[in-house]
């Protein structure tokens, strides 16, 4: 008997891609996609179930199809279509509670994978430079998506305690970037001019969409020999980019804004609808965040195909050049170097010390 996989949040790009991928896996009999709205993209041979995970109806879906693997991807920071922050928070927190309640009732469920975020660590100057899975943050996120994720993880821990027979895997993803990513940070990097916090150059880590799918696939399957895929894992590409490097590689100029004025600028941008400048995102863009991926490599046995810089380069290619394309700047410097008089001409360097 093959496995029956239920995936939440399939109306989003990531959920849709994962559904199309997981149904080709050997041993998977049936894939169910759940979301409130019908996805705009195809789901292949998977069955789409239009259901709201905030309602108890999700329990009937689990029982009816005999679902044994639940992939909970409907933990996100951005609203899908209409609906504001309140709806997102409800889906994240109440939806997770309902889903976990349904899983607890269903004896068939064997495996649960939850998408979380590294923003559960918060972002503060008093934190260590690199977060491990076991690091407890100095300041818990006070609101927004990060707080949702902290609460979701709390409920998942409770569920894991009550159902020790279920393998529970929490994946804390760094900022997801890639050609199709719709994260708040991707929106931010699409602005023509990037507002930054004056006097801070945060360290950022990215993970490519393809790596996200691959690590979800590993987590959804039986663990391979010598690896363990239950527990909590940070998922991020190798290396670190600072925000100044990102803006230069994108070719988008930055406007440093002093910290007290940043919230005001953020509110203005949000009102215009340019991007979601939540307080937690401002904190990320002030102090940055870097996580250790040793557990991901050693325990989960996953090697990301893209480094942080590679994921960012893929994203930059998909967005087109900014106002100051790095290629043009580099060419300008090269022209300057070519125009410089050679060592044989001119007496400019004569008086200089050797």
């Amino acid at each position, binding site marked *: 008997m093959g496995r029956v996989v239920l995936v939440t949040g399939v109306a989003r790009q990531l959920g849709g891609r994962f559904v199309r991928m997981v149904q080709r896996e050997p041993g998977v009999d049936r894939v169910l996609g759940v979301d409130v709205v019908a996805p705009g993209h195809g789901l292949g041979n998977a069955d789409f179930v239009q259901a709201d995970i905030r309602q108890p109806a999700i329990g009937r879906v689990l029982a009816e199809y005999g679902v044994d693997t639940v992939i909970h991807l409907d933990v996100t920071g951005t609203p899908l279509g209409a609906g504001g922050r309140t709806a997102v928070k409800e889906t994240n927190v109440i939806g997770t509670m309902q889903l976990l309640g349904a899983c607890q009732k269903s004896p068939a469920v064997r495996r649960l994978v939850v998408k979380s975020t590294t923003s559960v660590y918060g972002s503060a*100057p*008093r934190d260590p*430079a690199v977060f491990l899975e076991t690091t407890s943050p100095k300041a818990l996120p006070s609101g927004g998506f990060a707080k949702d994720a902290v609460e979701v993880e709390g409920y998942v821990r409770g569920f894991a305690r009550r159902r020790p027979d279920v393998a529970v895997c929490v994946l804390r993803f760094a900022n997801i970037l890639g050609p199709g990513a719709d994260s708040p940070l991707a929106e931010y990097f699409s602005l023509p001019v990037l507002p930054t916090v004056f006097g801070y150059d945060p*360290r950022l880590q990215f993970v490519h969409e393809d790596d996200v799918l691959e690590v979800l696939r590993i987590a959804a399957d039986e663990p391979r020999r010598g690896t363990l895929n239950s527990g909590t894992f940070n998922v991020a590409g190798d290396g670190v980019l600072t925000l100044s490097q990102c803006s230069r590689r994108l070719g988008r100029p930055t406007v440093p804004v002093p910290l007290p004025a940043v919230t005001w600028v953020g509110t203005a941008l949000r009102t215009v609808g340019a991007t979601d400048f939540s307080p937690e995102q401002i904190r990320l863009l002030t102090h940055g965040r870097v996580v250790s991926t040793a557990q991901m490599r050693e325990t989960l046995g996953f090697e990301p195909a893209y480094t942080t810089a590679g994921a960012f380069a893929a994203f930059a290619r998909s967005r087109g050049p900014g106002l100051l394309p*790095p290629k043009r700047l580099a060419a300008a410097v090269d022209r300057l170097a070519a125009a410089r008089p050679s060592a044989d001409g001119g007496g400019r360097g004569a*008086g200089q010390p*050797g």
Partner: protein
Amino acid sequence: MADAKVIPFDDDRSRGGTRSGAQRPGRRRSGPAGGPRREDGGAAEVSPLPGRAVAPGAVPEQEHEPEAGDGPRGAGRREWDRRIAGGLAFLRRRITGEYEVDEFGYDEELTDQVLMALLRPVYDKYFRVEVKGVENIPAEGGALVVANHSGTLPLDGLMMQVAVHDHHPAGRHLRLLAADLVFVLPVVSELARKAGHTLACAEDAERLLRRGEVVGVMPEGFKGIGKPFGERYKLQRFGRGGFVSTALRARTPIVPCSIVGAEEIYPMIGNAKTLARLLGLPYVPITPTFPWLGPLGAVPLPTKWTIQFGEPIATDGYPPEAAEDPMLMFNLTDQVREQIQHTLYRLLVQRRSVFF
């Protein structure tokens, strides 16, 4: 003479070798007063000009000497030319963002080419720092440099970083652990991360040590840097000795370091405590010049500095569970503290004057 009261301590420990050996790097520095000379290092060459990038392994001067048949004029021009080319290559990398930072935000290229070049005049010309015993820092592998802290502003840490960077035979980089206040302040936090500093916490220190870096720590913290002038060169409590257990866990040697001269750069005669509390700072210094002369009062006094690195204290002889033994930790902390204090007194006795 505003010298601290010097108590002649028993100098019986086997430091004779240290002293004679320590003179060497000091003499090495007394070459031409130009930029640093690092023919022996090779790994990370430093240029006296900001904005001159040098390919690794490129040896200046000597390489071009034979072909410069047209006298020093041609050689000079060629040299200058190469510098411009290097500067343009550096500029090209910077504006396109094609450089690397590590997970702590350390930007090695920027530190080597710009930040160190900015600090070097202060180091060479203003404080005329004399370095002794820099070879006590191992050429490879992790090490924890523990130093005294003084001077109201943490210039002593920066000077120690330049000292290791410019004078260590293996061209090692010192990674300083800084107070959390550093990472709260704008601009300062950005520069500190780029210069390779990180927060003084056990996690970061251990991570750096396990990566085989040389980590610099000043366990006195604000108690040391913000102490009144009357208590100069008296070591304060060494925190809770966390640095010892970190070094024990990472099994890296502890290198004690004594810095003389930093105490007198801002003689702190008072502390505006109310203002400090209002601003959220640990102290607001009042010096004979500071609030009275305005920004001019913030110029440090040009004292003559000596930085002495002592003999390393090995930690790999202890069993792994030693890091959990508070008694051993206190003993080692005291040993490190005593050694720094002894060296401070000895250097003070040897010092001719505060300014020369």
